Each structure stands twice: as C-alpha cells, then as structure tokens.
C-alpha cells in the first residue's frame, strides 16, 4: 500500500497557498512574479519551483469559466524517471510511494527529463553544477524535509484551505474519487492518474476535460519502464548467443584459412 493524493479541480480556488507552502517547507527560493496570460506564476515548474497552479479559461456549457489546477510530480507507481536513471539517483520508496531524487548520485545526463511522461523533472540551468529538481512528495529519507515518512500529509495538502487536495492511502483516494464522480453528474467520468503511465499516486478529477487544464492527454497507460524492459531483456541472450557466434566464426574462418595455407605449402613442396 502506498500513499496518494486526490486533487478535486472543482474545489480549487487557485489561491496558490500550496505553492507557497511547498517553497517554505522545502527551503526553495522565491522569484519576482512574471504573470503570463494564463495568470499563473511561474507558468511552469522550473529548477526552483516544484509545484505550480495552472490557471486556464475554458468553455463550459457555452460559458467561459476559470479552472485552476495544481501540478507537480505525479509519483508514478512504476516511474519512468526511476527506470531511466543510469546511476540510481531516482528511487521509489515503496512505503510512501514517493519517487525521490538523490542529488549526490546524479550525473546530470538529463535522461530522466526525457523519460518522464509528464515532463516533471526540471534542471537548474543557471548553475555551474546544476541538479535536477522535482517534487519529492515531502518525503526525505535523511529526515530534514520529511513529512510523509512520519505519516503527515505533504505541506501543500495541509495548507489547502478548500480541501481540494486530499491525502491518504492511494486505494482509498481512488475509491473516494469514484464515489464523488458517481454521485455528481457534473464530473468527467475519468480519474486522471488511475491508469495514466500505469497509475500514479496523484490523481485528478474535474468537470472539464483534463487536457484543457494543462494536463497531458495522450499519456500511455503502459508504464514507461516496460518499454525499456522490452528491449533490455534481450541483452543477456544477445551477449551469449552473439558472443558465442562471433567466437565460433572467428576460430572457424581462421582455421579454414590456416588449413588452406597449409595445403598451398604442401602443394608447392
């Protein structure tokens, strides 16, 4: 059993308290606001911002309405970032379900940024020795920034004034999501994160389509690591078979050449 968070977009008022709480709890620097046309600041997560609230004007029942959506690492059940990292700088904690980044192991190849189906990992481009940066689910094996490891909710969830965020066992959160959907026809009949990328700890329900909120719509339901595994599983047999074949060919063709050379000699003598 791992933890999960249910984000109910219909309850979010876009106050960004979660974003501030994240910065404060995790000692992240703030920056001068540069509001762009989606009203959010910053428009996307970056090397120093792990979560941000998207503001979108969307059409619903022929009316323009504003919807606001908190976005951060989804903490996949089988995370692409964990499988992509060749130095194990990303590891998933099975108890909490947090996909945690361990800076001291990171080489800085940025393959994790490519491999994440939600484009979550960001990079500190302005630094000489930049690190990858992403939400840690308020889980810190070293203890300093840990909340979820102690059984507490993440800082953002605790701060949310409207209970738009709800923390608990993932299974229970999923159950809650479907309860809400089934008891109110207003919701879209889909829990974003139930199946996306093989399932994620963070899940969303909404009354407008998810792609209009700024969430990626075409995420595969197959966990990303399976795509790599589909290829890597052939490595051991290829080493054995191809290595054996190469050796056999080497010694066979060499012997044939030597025998031919011998024959030539015999002929001349």
């Amino acid at each position, binding site marked *: 059993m791992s933890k999960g968070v249910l984000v109910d977009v219909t309850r979010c008022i876009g106050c960004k308290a979660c974003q501030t709480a994240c910065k404060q709890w995790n000692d992240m620097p703030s920056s001068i606001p540069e509001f762009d046309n989606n009203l959010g600041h910053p428009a*996307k997560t970056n090397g120093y911002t792990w979560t941000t609230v998207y503001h979108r004007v969307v059409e619903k029942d022929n009316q323009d309405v504003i919807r606001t959506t908190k976005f951060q690492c989804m903490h996949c059940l089988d995370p692409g970032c964990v499988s992509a990292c*060749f*130095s194990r*700088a990303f590891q998933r904690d099975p108890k909490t379900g947090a996909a945690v980044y361990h800076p001291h192991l990171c*080489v*800085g190849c*940025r393959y994790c940024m*490519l491999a994440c189906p939600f484009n979550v990992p960001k990079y500190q481009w302005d630094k*000489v020795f*930049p690190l990858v940066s992403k939400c840690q689910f308020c889980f810190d094996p070293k203890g300093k920034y840990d909340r979820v490891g102690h059984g507490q909710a993440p800082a953002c969830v605790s701060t949310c004034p409207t209970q738009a965020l709800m923390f608990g066992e993932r299974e229970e959160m999923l159950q809650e999501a479907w309860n809400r959907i089934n008891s109110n026809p207003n919701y879209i009949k889909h829990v974003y994160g139930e199946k996306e990328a093989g399932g994620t700890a963070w899940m969303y329900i909404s009354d407008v389509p998810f792609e209009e909120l700024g969430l990626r719509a075409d995420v595969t339901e197959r966990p990303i690591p399976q795509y790599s595994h589909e290829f890597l599983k052939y490595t051991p047999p290829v080493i054995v078979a191809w290595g054996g074949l190469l050796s056999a060919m080497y010694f066979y063709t060499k012997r044939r050449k030597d025998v031919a050379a011998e024959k030539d000699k015999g002929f001349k003598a």
Partner: protein
Amino acid sequence: MMSAQKWSFRITPVRMLLLLLALLAAAIAVYRLVTGLGSATNLNDEWPWGLWIGFDVLTGVALAGGGYSVALIAHILHIEKFNAIARSAMLTSLLGYLLVMIGLFLDIGQWFNFWRPFVSWGYHSVLFEVFWCVSLYTTVQVLEFGEIATEKVVKPLHKFFAKAMPFLLIVGVLLPTLHQSSLGALYLTQVGKLHPLWWSPYIGLFFLMSSFFVGPAMVTVETSLAGRAYNHWIDTKILRSLQRIGFTVMLMYLALKIFDLTSRDAWQYVFAGGLESNMFILEMAVGVLIPLVIFFTAWGKTRAGLTTAGAMVAIGVIINRMNVVITGMIGYSGAGYAPSWMEWMVTIGLVAGGMLAYCFICDNFRILEHEDEQHKAA
C-alpha cells in the same frame, strides 16, 4: 628507447586551420565547464538534449561504426582482402569514440560525478547499457591500438598485445552491437513524444543496422580523402565489395522500414507535408534510396560513384540522428531549439581535433601501408 624514435608532423595550411578550430573549441569547453551548461548552450527545460547529444554522441558513435563493421568483416570472418583498410577504419573509430567521450563529458551537468554509474548500477536504464558498453569499447579500442603502437614504442609489449587481439576483436564487435542498438532504444521511452515517423518499437534495430552500413560508407569516403592526402589508393574492387556488404544490410533496413511504417499505419505521416515529413523524405532519399540507385548503376562501379554514394549514406545517417533528437521532438516540445554558437564551435572543433589526430597518427604509425603486418592482427 623513446629517443630512437622519429616523430614527424607536417604543418600545412589546412592543418593550421584545424588546429585553430580545435584550440577555440578547447577554450569554449573550459568556459562551459567553469560557467555551466546554461550560459554556454541553448538548452532549457523544453530541450534537455541538443546538438551535443544529437551530433557529438549519437551521430559520432554511428559514424565511428566503421570500426566494428570492418573488424567483423576483416578479422572475424577473415576476409583477407579487406585487411588493407581495417587499420584505418579502426583508427577512425577509436578517435571517434574518444571524441564522443569528450562530448558526453561536456554535456553532463555534474561532470565530476561521471564515474557514478560504474558503482551505482541503474541497470533498468537503457542508458546504463550505453554507458558501460561505450566505456568498455573505447578501452578495448585503445588496447587494440596498443598492438599498432607497440610496433613503434615500448616494443617488448607487442607480443602481449598481439596475443590478446582475438579476444579484443570479438569483444570489440560484441559491445558495439549492444550500444549501437541501445542508443536508439533510449528513445523507446519517448513513446507519444517522438514523432511517429521515428518512434518505433524497432528503433534499436534501426540504429544498429544503420550504424553497420554507414561503416563501409565512411571507410570509402575516408580512404578517398586519405588517398588524396597520402597518395595511397585502395583498389576500387575492394571498396565495392565492402560496400556491397553495407548495401545488403541497407536493403534489409529499407525492408524493415517499410514493414514498420505499414504495421504502425504511419505512411500517412510520410505524405502529410510539413517539417517532419520533409525531413523524413530527405533522410530516406539522401541516405538510402539515391545511394542504392547509384550503387546498382554503372557509375557505382567507379571510385567517384562509390565515394559519392558513401558520402550520401553518411549524410543520411547524420540527418537521421538529428531528426530523432531534434526534428522529431519539435512537435511535442512546442518550442524551437537552435544550438548556440558555442555549441556549434565545440562540435566543429571536436571534429577538427579528430582529423588532426588522425593525420598525426598516420604520419607516425603504420596505418595505411601495413599489408605485410596483417597476419599478426588476424
């Protein structure tokens, strides 16, 4: 011992230019290491991988593929007529990989941590396979070069190197088979991101096959360059039969492409127009279709024809790798990417440095004229 050696390095205007380019690149490389990636490159959160990964690494490894395809043909299959070109092919490959290592080193953010994956095994990652194979293969190639080098320096060691050659040669074909394909397989995780003209469950196989057939192509181009510079001409017949092996693999590549596009119902994208379609058609025309036509016409029997076909195949593979890294990702990323001038200069300077090293080694070791020595290596 060393004092008895004669070292020579002629300085010509071209070499002067190459030297300047290499020095400029070295200066920029130092600047990048001291100030960070953000100030030297145009990379950002939308474009975590750019020219250095695309050209210096992915393309560099493919173009250096001549080393393993020729080693397989000449030394594993013992087809002796190819011995004449084996050494120069393997040297180009060694230099290519060294440049790839430098390119990679410059591209990683925590460069002092580059050794981490040797001890912290992220074996679930395709990149882990790439990392291990490329490092081991570069080592193997340095050792293989040891066999050549000890003809001239530290001669007593030569017999050890000559003894180890069979093992080195076999491992030296096995490792590239693994990492050439895994470089493509890195993009398997880009499902839904990389444009469907390039994302394919067979992308690893495509990378492997193209790295194999670009080998003979590169060797042809290279021998014609070296032929001019060193007045050392390789028999056209040898080049043609080497290329025949390459073109056979290329036909298989073409067949797999057709099968792949059909099975994924992706032909619509080929003719959809727009940047991706055009780049795909360009890649296939320049790199595969026109060279095939040249090869099977009368012109393909001449040195000029073979060299042209070879050059086109090499350019086609370059376009292919850049398409995967850049063109195919534009649609998803939504933002454009153009390398900074520093990224360009480092890439150009690395190639220039490699060419200089090639000239220096050819001037001083028996790379081009060595037919009599070959029985030892074989």
